[in-house]
């Protein structure tokens, strides 16, 4: 059987950064498995700029950002298998703690690979129409924004000429501009929530610049057209997101794009038996970004959906370093002293979900999202009920991931740690 120390599932921004950092941390045997025919993942179709401000202090396009990591991986001579789909990940039956990764490609066929550690970096997928229960016909012309993005930017095709967009996530906003630039008429962007999940910059530069209206608290209530989309009707919704009769507006169009949320792609993770968080839909991880299955780490959008790739790279780098420590035998194996982080009062979740101060490096980065738009709010962290962090935020919104860095010292000062709580407070 083929062997590697670390198998990285996915060669997008997360997988590449994880592999690079694992290599730099001294692990010589790493294999990246990528299903596409090139590295870079979703960044390849994100041809707009705005990537890398945190990492490189300049604004790059998606492909440029990806190339910097691809180049590094090549310089470090990290082997990658392209066109390769991982079919399953399972624990080796010999009790060694190794994982058996089964993958498939044209060149090697069906291969079983024995890995000491696995880094999950499979990314996420878009929520399809069916998951939104949008009534109406099911003609051609209904695409997720990401599929349309691929058709336009990778294949060079126009999926439609007259467009309605549901959902104001960043991909939807970016595609509103992209389709407009290529000559389509984007008539309206409808957003179910009373706020947009997209960046302000994208609302201004993708919608306002082109006079495309954004209708908050609206959803699609009907799709017409038996073969190709002919019209889409949207309506205002009440506080419970139910359409209000009498507020319908009908748009004749040939295309409906959906930008209604991303779902971490965790089928392999679930089948492996890792605990999945019902909130993030990603695996639960500890401060080392290790899942409930020892030696299996997760990072990027498969862990929880990010809005900035810079944070994906940071997180993935950390997963890579921890995986390296694991295969070098330097990681503590015991789960004694694990504390589950409580997310409450407006904090929907935290990643990691579990912190063990004994295993901590000098700091731990807690990432989380809030459940609504809050202004002039405090983000607070409590250890054993004692507040150790109290940070004012002028604004916190669900579309923007929040980050708190906690120091190991803060934990060392608390005796007999029992609880860690992250919450929003008005004062």
């Amino acid at each position, binding site marked *: 059987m083929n062997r590697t120390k670390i198998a990285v599932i996915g060669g997008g921004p997360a997988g590449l950064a994880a592999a690079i950092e694992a290599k730099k941390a001294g692990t010589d045997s790493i294999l990246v498995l990528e299903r596409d025919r090139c590295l870079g993942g979703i960044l390849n179709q994100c*041809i707009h700029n705005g990537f890398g401000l945190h990492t490189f202090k300049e604004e790059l*396009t998606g492909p*440029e950002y990806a*190339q910097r990591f691809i180049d590094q991986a090549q310089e470090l001579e990290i082997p990658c298998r392209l066109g390769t789909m991982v079919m399953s990940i399972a624990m080796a039956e010999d009790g060694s703690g190794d994982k058996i990764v089964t993958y498939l490609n044209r060149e090697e066929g069906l291969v079983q690979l024995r890995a000491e550690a696995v880094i999950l970096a499979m990314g996420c997928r878009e929520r399809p129409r069916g998951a939104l229960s949008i009534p109406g016909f099911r003609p051609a012309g209904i695409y997720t924004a990401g599929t349309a993005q691929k058709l336009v*930017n990778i294949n060079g095709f126009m999926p439609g000429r007259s467009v309605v967009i549901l959902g104001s996530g960043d991909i939807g906003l970016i595609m509103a501009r992209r389709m407009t630039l290529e000559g389509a008429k984007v008539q309206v962007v409808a957003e179910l929530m009373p706020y947009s999940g997209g960046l*302000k910059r994208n609302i201004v530069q993708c919608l306002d610049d082109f006079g495309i209206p954004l209708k908050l608290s609206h959803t699609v209530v009907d799709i017409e057209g038996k073969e190709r989309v002919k019209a889409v009707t949207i309506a205002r919704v009440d506080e419970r997101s139910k359409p209000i009769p009498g507020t319908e507006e009908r748009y004749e169009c040939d295309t409906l794009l959906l930008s209604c949320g991303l779902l971490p792609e965790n089928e392999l993770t679930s089948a492996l038996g890792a605990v999945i968080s019902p909130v993030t839909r990603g695996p639960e991880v500890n401060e080392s970004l290790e899942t409930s299955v020892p030696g299996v780490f997760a990072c990027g959008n498969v862990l929880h959906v990010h809005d900035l790739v810079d944070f994906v790279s940071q997180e993935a780098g950390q997963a890579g370093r921890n995986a390296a420590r694991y295969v070098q035998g330097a990681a503590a194996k015991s789960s004694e002293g694990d504390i589950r982080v409580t997310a409450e009062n407006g904090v929907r979740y935290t990643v990691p979900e579990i912190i063990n101060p004994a295993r901590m490096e000098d700091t731990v980065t807690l990432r989380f999202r809030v459940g609504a738009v809050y202004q002039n709010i405090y983000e607070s962290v409590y250890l054993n009920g004692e507040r150790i962090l109290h940070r004012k935020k002028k*604004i916190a*919104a669900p579309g923007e991931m929040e980050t708190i860095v906690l120091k190991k010292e803060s934990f060392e000062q608390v005796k007999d740690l029992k609880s860690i709580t992250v919450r929003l407070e008005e004062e």
Partner: protein
Amino acid sequence: MEKRELTCIGCPMGCQITVTLENGEVKSVEGNTCMKGDKYARAEVTNPVRVVTSSVPVRDGEIDQVSVKTAGDIPKGCIFDVMEALRGISLQAPVHIGDVVLADVCGTGVDITATKNVERKIV
């Protein structure tokens, strides 16, 4: 006296900023809650600029399209002129990041450059 309404893009707050202009000169900036907003508003009313990104076909490459961008800011009013200038352009593989696709696009002094490597397809 002219008033212009803007949404600040500095942070998720999205402050609604009102800029008052007289003879093209900024007289006041109101509604912003930080200095970032002031700076953004002044630039946006006097000289709004954007980076345009798109993709163009590439012949004999491993893939069929290569992504491109204006290598710097161009005036916001030129966005569609730039898109028009790109229409009909196609490249021959290989193409590399930074290769100039179209020099001095629309007289802006800014080049269009490739943002992706596309190697020649091995036949």
